[in-house]
């Protein structure tokens, strides 16, 4: 089950949807990040749930300040949902093609290191917001 990367992506997608749904119904400050639980420091993805909740309520700027990663998390979720629906009802292989394209992008060092630089900025923003 864990050998096929598409299964892992699908499980993360389902877990994300369940998590967003639970947070919409029962807003809470439960911390699930292992990095934060151990080090008491926010990781790169911390604040994503809050950012998504703010985005759903229409507060775009506050959502971006919470976590910049939603810039590509939201399009990824939308794209993946559409691919999944296409594959289910039309018998296509869009999810596999999408995964392969993303794989090719991240195999190139330029894009990978650009992503890391972006994540460092997001992380620095976490600490800046926490301090101010």
């Amino acid at each position, binding site marked *: 089950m*864990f050998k096929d*990367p598409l299964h*892992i*992506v699908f*499980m*993360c997608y389902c*877990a*994300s949807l369940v*998590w967003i749904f639970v947070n919409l119904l029962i807003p809470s400050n439960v911390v*699930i*990040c*292992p*990095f*934060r639980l151990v080090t008491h420091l926010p*990781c*790169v*993805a*911390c604040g*994503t749930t809050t950012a998504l909740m703010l985005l759903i309520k229409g507060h775009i700027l506050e959502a971006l300040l919470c976590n910049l*990663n939603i810039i590509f*998390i939201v399009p990824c979720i939308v794209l993946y949902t559409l691919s999944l629906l296409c594959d289910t009802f039309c018998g296509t292989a869009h999810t596999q093609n999408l*995964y392969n394209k*993303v*794989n090719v992008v*991240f*195999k190139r060092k330029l894009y*990978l290191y650009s*992503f890391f630089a972006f*994540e460092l900025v997001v992380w620095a923003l976490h600490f800046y917001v926490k301090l101010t």
Partner: protein
Amino acid sequence: MDLNTNMLMIAYGKYFPSASALTVKQIFETIPEEKKAMLGMLEFKDPTIALIISILVGALGIDRFYIGDNTQGVLKLITCGGFGLWTIVDWFLIMNSTKEKNLQKLLTLA
């Protein structure tokens, strides 16, 4: 099994799944001499180091980046280690995943 194959199995055996030992042995026996020198350049990843990375900073996806699974590393990073669950699962899977990746690298050489 000749001495060269023996030495290669001793040097590189731990990098590959034990279930594929026969396949690895056959590759080492049939590989041309000029390709044997390229073995060192393939940069096989150490499964033990992958496990240590997974335990320490696995929540940030660094273990997946280490073995070359960049997309999965990115996904793990932006989901807080797959909501913590993937982090724990990878503690048990990462060594085998590393060995499988190393085997794929070796098969490209054969």
